[in-house]
């Protein structure tokens, strides 16, 4: 019996066109995605690498929910839908045959359908390179197992799980609408695990919670290097294995559980929905004899409007009373609440619930729910009367079309208003519950009702038109979804992001406490007007196509369309079109005429032209700046800045210089005087016309310009340059923050052209370079000891040390700051002026800041009596963590002064700037620091990583590493600046938190280093040649921390101090490179540890240490004997990430045994080591026995993660007693 049901199901499905359509869609889509390289992976990884296929299969598990629900939802529902259930019971078929036959039959078909993806993948990997859809070198060898392995181990469990859910739910509820809510529930589970993934601590939970295993897969492969991604089939072990088993198991439990309750009788006879009680009305007819009253009827315009309103209310009630609407809404609210409550964790630290963030998080998970609700319920509303068949009555009522349609529109508008209001309600709740009362209601109102509502509304209007045109609910959803996906793909992957071309898209914006809605208000208004007017046209078109009555044919509707095409309508469309085109014209004028929008492709083209035309001038002999006087006038109200710079230049080369090569940002215009004589450009390029700029007065000049000098500069000659320029921000742009000059919080270091060719502006990606006919770029600076490199400074080849003076003015309510000591402040012509002067020579690195600041002043005094003024310029609402900044500065000054030598300035300043960029940057005695970087973070948990303190210490350390010792321009020299700053900050943290509690800093470093190398797109350099942020920050941090642990903090500091003493404030070349630091440090390293210097600086070394077992035996009250089984292994990797085992391992590795954490009064947890010593270990397994005093709780090998270990989690284990 089972077999007959099973084979009937298969035969039935094989005759259904849908089966083949799904297969074809999967096959085709996969083929295109693979062929065109639509999977975001690092450039050195093949599109058909086992890692990539695995990733795709995992993601496919999510997308296949759509197909699974369609395939697995129908086998049982079919009998209800077609009323075949009535005679189901009359057949001798058993429930087991029915239930399982249908299930496995459909599942087999589903598996068959999904093999379309495998076929598509294979085709893509052949056709992609064959037709050059993407670069042939992006495809590696095809191996059958690469496909089958992830399909079976990762994808099929997802498929079985979702199939069980969909099939089971229909069996249980006899209702196919439940499929929607189940899909949404699955989606919520997935989002939940996504949501938790932000926190490093919850890794196991995240791994288990994701029903599709995507986060699990990413976690399991996050440290795979490109070489591994290309060759390694993801091992199904550990969490990934458990996750797959768990969810497959849950699927089986669900389907078996439901089977145990499943009754064929009940299934076939109960009413759909099952819960509604059908009750015949028992009451007797009473007043049947009353006569029907005559009612007065009115059909005035006023009553029509009131009908519209009331119909709208009824429709809104229909929507909001829908159980699924409530469920999805609840999901939306829960996610928004969680996002608002937890917020963005930086290093695991939460922020205070500031209003600007409450409004930010609605664009996270919440926006997905909004999208679902609007798309789905617009369809429901449009089709409700037809679907419930109330239309047969409703369409004959004396209600004009415009009232019918208008009421639907009112309801959907109501939904949009509701959706726009929820972020405020949730945000306020979170703020009040947190006891946070700096609530900015006007932010809520402006953002939600003047920006966000319109966004939602436009989405609804488009959905409205689609559903009216398509006139079929499911097809309508499909088309709507398709349009949004197509726009998303085109915009994000096809290098065309012109917002005017994508319905409802507008420039991204960010609210800042400092700058409010700032310069975003204007473009958002115009874009919203533009799209809403188009939405209005959609609405009119929808009303013209609105189908009424029982005939839905194209002809009928076309006839209705022509009937309704009347002057009023035409004028309406003309009016809306006028607004649409008018605002569109204005947007276009701003984006493409005032500002010359260039797409990503055009930008790359320009970059390639720059390199092709000017690479020949790289390292051309040019003068260097020796002195600078800067006059800067900030005009915050119209976001412009006038700059005049007087530069003294000097020919420090041995060659005669005839021409000056200057390079300005984005083709910035300026005038140039040479010794008082105005120079005109003798050679420059005109940029090609931007593709979308049709009205073009003047072509743009390329930034690279060559000026013939009126007199040649002979070696040693000096001259004066005067550069005058205005930075302005006309109109608005397509996308981007243009954050430098603002109404409040200006922070710029640009404006003045730099000297000579800058290789940093070249195209970076090798794939792009190939496309534009450029050779691969290895991203390497000149080799060690290169003569040119040694006499050139890393950050700036325009100057060595200079003298600096700045006159800066701004509006009276703002304070303007530049590096240097304040000489004088005065007001003149209604403007506030400041004069800053740097009385010692510094590197050529300046900035101008202006804002409405509150100022905190403090002072640090060295033991010798050197005084340093501390100033924090902050936004008045952000006074929460000022003490942390101050103590970071003070502790830093003390430690650095003591260990690395005196501070070269008499002041240090921190300045807050708006959150449009999230970084801090160290200029001489001046540190601009992003609003988002700890100013309003909540550090109340003493166990949190105090990154405000740590980052402040890091930036302060740059005053030594970067400003005192300025690295030269050779390979790896940036580690002098960044790794030493990281190390310095870690030492402060160690001093403050104790050596046993630095692990939380190291843990983040290790994670980021391993992730960094996993996404490396070219090659991984050894540390001494470092050329990537993950190397000089995170790897440098770990290497130097371990080094001080090996050789002693004092010893390492002494050699670093000696290094500083020989290169600090050095004005003459040779400047130091990484090799100089290496030599200084190496002197302090005993022979027994030379292997470590070599492993860490000159090789790529990875450990694979883990503890297998830890057992303890109680010897006496106090004493325990702990026996540890540990495994040690060391690998060397090459630059592509290919690893070979080191055969000479005999290294010093920490072995530690720990008592339970001690908790201080304020809740701070402290690690308590009972034993921590270095053991010299060879590769392999070791058994170590140690006696400790005190009860051991955990034990491990390298428990503090001082070494670079591929799997840091398995270094500690609970001790068995």
């Amino acid at each position: 019996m089972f077999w007959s049901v099973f084979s009937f199901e298969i035969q039935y499905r094989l005759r259904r066109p849908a089966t083949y359509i799904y297969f074809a869609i999967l096959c085709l889509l996969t083929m295109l995605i693979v062929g065109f390289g639509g999977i975001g992976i690092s450039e050195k990884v093949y599109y058909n690498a086992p890692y990539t296929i695995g990733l795709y299969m995992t993601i496919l598990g999510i997308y296949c929910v759509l197909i699974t629900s369609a395939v697995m939802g129908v086998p049982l529902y079919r009998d209800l839908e077609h009323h075949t259930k009535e005679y189901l019971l009359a057949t001798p078929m058993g429930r087991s045959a029915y239930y399982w036959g249908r299930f496995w039959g459909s599942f087999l078909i589903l598996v068959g359908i999904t093999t379309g993806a495998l076929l598509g993948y294979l085709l893509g990997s052949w056709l992609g390179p064959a037709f050059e859809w993407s670069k042939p070198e992006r495809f590696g060898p095809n191996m059958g197992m690469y496909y089958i392995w992830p399909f079976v181990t990762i994808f099929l469990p997802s498929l079985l799980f979702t199939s069980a859910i969909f099939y089971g739910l229909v069996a249980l509820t006899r209702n196919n609408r439940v499929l929607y809510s189940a899909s949404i529930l699955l989606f919520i589970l997935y989002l939940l695990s996504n949501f938790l993934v932000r926190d490093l601590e919850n890794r196991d939970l995240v791994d288990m919670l994701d029903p599709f295993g995507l986060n699990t897969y990413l976690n399991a492969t996050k440290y795979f290097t490109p070489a591994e991604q290309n060759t390694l089939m993801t091992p199904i072990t550990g969490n990934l294995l458990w996750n797959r088993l768990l969810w497959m198991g849950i699927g089986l439990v669900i389907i078996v559980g439901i089977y145990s309750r499943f009754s064929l009788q009940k299934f076939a006879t109960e009413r759909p929905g099952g819960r509604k009680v059908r009750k015949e009305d028992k009451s007797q007819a009473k007043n049947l004899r009353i006569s029907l009253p005559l009612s007065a009827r009115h059909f005035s315009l006023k009553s029509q409007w009131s009908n519209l309103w009331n119909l709208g209310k009824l429709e809104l009630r229909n929507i909001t009373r829908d159980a699924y609407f409530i469920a999805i809404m609840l999901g939306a609210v829960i996610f928004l609440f969680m996002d608002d409550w937890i917020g963005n964790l930086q290093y695991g630290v939460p922020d205070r619930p500031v209003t600007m963030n409450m409004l930010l998080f609605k664009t996270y998970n919440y926006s997905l729910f909004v999208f679902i609700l609007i798309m789905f319920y617009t369809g429901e509303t449009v089709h409700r009367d037809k679907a419930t068949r109330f239309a047969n009555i409703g369409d004959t009522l004396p209600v004009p079309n415009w009232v019918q349609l208008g009421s639907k529109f009112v309801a959907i508008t109501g939904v949009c208003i509701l959706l726009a209001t929820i972020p405020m309600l949730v945000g306020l709740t979170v703020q009040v519950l947190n006891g946070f009362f700096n609530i900015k209601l006007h932010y809520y109102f402006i953002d939600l009702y003047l920006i966000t509502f319109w966004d939602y509304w436009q989405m609804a209007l488009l959905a409205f038109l689609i559903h009216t045109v398509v006139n079929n609910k499911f097809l309508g959803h499909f088309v709507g979804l398709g349009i949004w996906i197509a726009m998303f793909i085109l915009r994000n992957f096809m290098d065309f992001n012109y917002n005017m071309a994508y319905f409802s898209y507008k420039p991204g914006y960010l609210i800042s406490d400092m700058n409010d809605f700032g310069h975003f208000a204007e473009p958002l208004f115009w874009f919203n007007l533009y799209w809403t007017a188009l939405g209005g046209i959609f609405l009119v078109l929808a009303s013209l196509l609105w189908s009424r009555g029982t005939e839905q044919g194209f002809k009928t509707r076309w006839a209705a369309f022509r009937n309704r095409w009347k002057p009023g309508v035409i004028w309406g469309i003309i009016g809306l079109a006028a607004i649409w085109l008018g605002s569109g014209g204005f947007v276009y004028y701003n984006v493409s005429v005032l500002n010359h929008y260039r797409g990503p492709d055009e930008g790359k083209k320009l970059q390639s032209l720059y390199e092709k035309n000017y690479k020949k001038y790289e390292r051309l002999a040019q003068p260097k700046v020796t002195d600078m006087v800067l006059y800067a006038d900030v005009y915050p109200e119209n976001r412009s800045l006038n700059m005049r710079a007087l530069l003294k230049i000097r020919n420090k080369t041995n060659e005669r210089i005839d021409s000056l090569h200057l390079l300005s940002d984005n083709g910035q215009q300026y005038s140039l005087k040479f010794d008082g004589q105005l120079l005109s450009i003798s050679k420059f390029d005109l940029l090609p016309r931007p593709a979308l700029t049709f009205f073009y007065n003047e072509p743009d000049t390329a930034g690279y310009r060559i000026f013939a000098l009126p007199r040649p500069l002979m070696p040693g000659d000096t001259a004066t340059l005067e550069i005058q320029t205005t930075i302005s921000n006309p109109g608005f742009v397509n996308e981007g923050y243009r954050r430098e000059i603002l109404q409040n919080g200006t922070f710029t270091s640009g404006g003045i052209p730099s000297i000579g060719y800058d290789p940093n502006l070249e195209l970076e990606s090798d794939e792009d370079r190939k496309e534009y006919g450029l050779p691969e770029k290895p991203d390497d600076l000149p080799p060690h000891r290169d003569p040119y490199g040694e006499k050139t400074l890393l950050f700036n080849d325009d100057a060595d040390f200079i003298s600096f003076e700045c006159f800066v003015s701004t509006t009276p309510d703002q304070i303007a700051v530049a590096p240097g000591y304040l000489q004088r402040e005065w007001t003149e012509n209604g403007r506030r002026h400041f004069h800053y002067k740097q009385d010692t020579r510094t590197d050529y690195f300046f900035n101008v800041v202006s804002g409405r600041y509150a100022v905190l002043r403090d002072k640090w005094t060295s033991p010798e009596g050197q005084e340093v003024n501390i100033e924090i310029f902050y936004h008045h609402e952000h006074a929460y963590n000022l003490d942390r900044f101050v103590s970071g500065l003070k502790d830093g000054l003390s430690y650095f002064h003591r260990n690395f030598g005196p501070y070269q300035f008499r002041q240090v300043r921190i300045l807050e700037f708006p959150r449009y960029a999230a970084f801090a940057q160290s200029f001489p005695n001046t540190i601009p620091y992003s609003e988002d970087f700890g100013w309003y973070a909540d550090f109340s948990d003493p166990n949190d990583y105090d990154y405000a303190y740590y980052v402040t210490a890091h930036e302060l350390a740059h005053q030594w590493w970067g400003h005192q010792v300025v690295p030269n321009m050779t390979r790896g020299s940036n580690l002098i600046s960044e790794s030493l700053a990281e190390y310095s900050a870690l030492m402060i943290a160690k001093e403050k938190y104790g050596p046993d509690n630095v692990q939380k800093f190291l843990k983040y470093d290790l994670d980021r280093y391993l992730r960094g190398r996993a996404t490396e797109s070219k090659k991984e350099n050894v540390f001494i040649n470092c050329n990537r942020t993950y190397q000089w920050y995170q790897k440098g941090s770990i290497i130097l921390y371990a080094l001080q642990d090996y050789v002693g903090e004092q010893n390492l500091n002494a050699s670093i101090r000696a290094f500083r003493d020989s290169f600090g404030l050095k004005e003459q070349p040779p400047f130091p490179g990484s090799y100089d630091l290496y030599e200084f440090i190496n002197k302090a390293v005993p022979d027994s540890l030379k292997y470590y210097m070599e492993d860490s600086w000159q090789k790529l070394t990875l450990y694979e240490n883990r503890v297998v077992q830890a057992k303890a035996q109680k010897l006496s009250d106090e004493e325990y004997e702990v026996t540890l089984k540990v495994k040690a292994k060391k690998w060397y990797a090459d630059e592509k990430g290919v690893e070979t085992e080191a055969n000479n391992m005999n290294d010093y590795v920490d072995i530690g045994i720990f008592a339970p954490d001690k908790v201080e009064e304020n809740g701070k947890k402290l690690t308590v080591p009972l034993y921590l010593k270095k053991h010299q270990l060879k590769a392999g397994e070791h058994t170590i026995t140690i006696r400790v005093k005190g009860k051991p709780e955990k034990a491990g090998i390298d428990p503090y993660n001082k070494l670079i270990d591929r799997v840091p989690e398995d270094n500690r284990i609970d001790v068995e007693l």
Partner: protein
Amino acid sequence: MELIIDNLTKTYANGVHALNGVTLQIPQGMFGLLGPNGAGKSTLMRTISTLQDATGGSIRLGDLDVLKDHDAVRKLLGYLPQEFGVYPRVSAEIMLDHVARLKGISDRKERKIAVEALLQKVNLWEARKRNLGTYSGGMKQRFGIAQALLGNPKLLIVDEPTAGLDPAERNRFYNLLSEIGETTIVILSTHIVEDVQTLCKRFAIICGGEVMYVGTPKEAIQMMEGKVWAKSIPKQEVDAYRADYRVIATNLNEGMLFIRIASDEEPGNGFAPVKPTLEDVYFRAISEKMDLVTL
């Protein structure tokens, strides 16, 4: 006021000729539409009810052109479709109030009076607060009747209204219709011949999209007077009789077949004259269009 249908034709996109030159004059009072399934009754009613357009011909209601002036017709119309749905999460009372509003009863009090009267008339008063989704088929049908009667329509179209009603409810409904028929054009489609006989002043038989007969039930029966004959025959001989006579009804009883035929002249052969019924008229009429196979 009269409803005048003139040469109305309707061809669907799939080529089906649903109406083929239908011409009818429908005065005030109850007008019955009889016809087999697929005869075009519903198409005709939907066309009058502005739910769909005709391919040719015209419909006039008094001075109104029904095919063009949809809005004006809807103001006079009450319609109970054969199939309709409701909003499941709204109560009958609210829904009726809402329909009343849409029908132009904008005064709240008047609406309340009208809705309450109708709820009582159709015997839904006790269930008025319940959501429509919980109604049984019969209750839903009564709700449908109530909404159609709201706003004192001048043209009431009811398409198979008694489906799902028990006999008592059916009677009640017919009484209600008769009462309304005194001042209104009521078009009632049904395939229960008896209903037409008891209720309708005039009626039409439609088959295959054409009007086969129009008149009063009495006239119709009179017309058949002396033209209907009956006889009992063995079952197996029916085919022979079918070839020779116009068989309009067969009735199997204890192995013998009782057949009725229509014939203007005395058929002889053992046939005896019987008193014609409206059913005979009906079957006689549609037998011209379709093969009556009742066995």
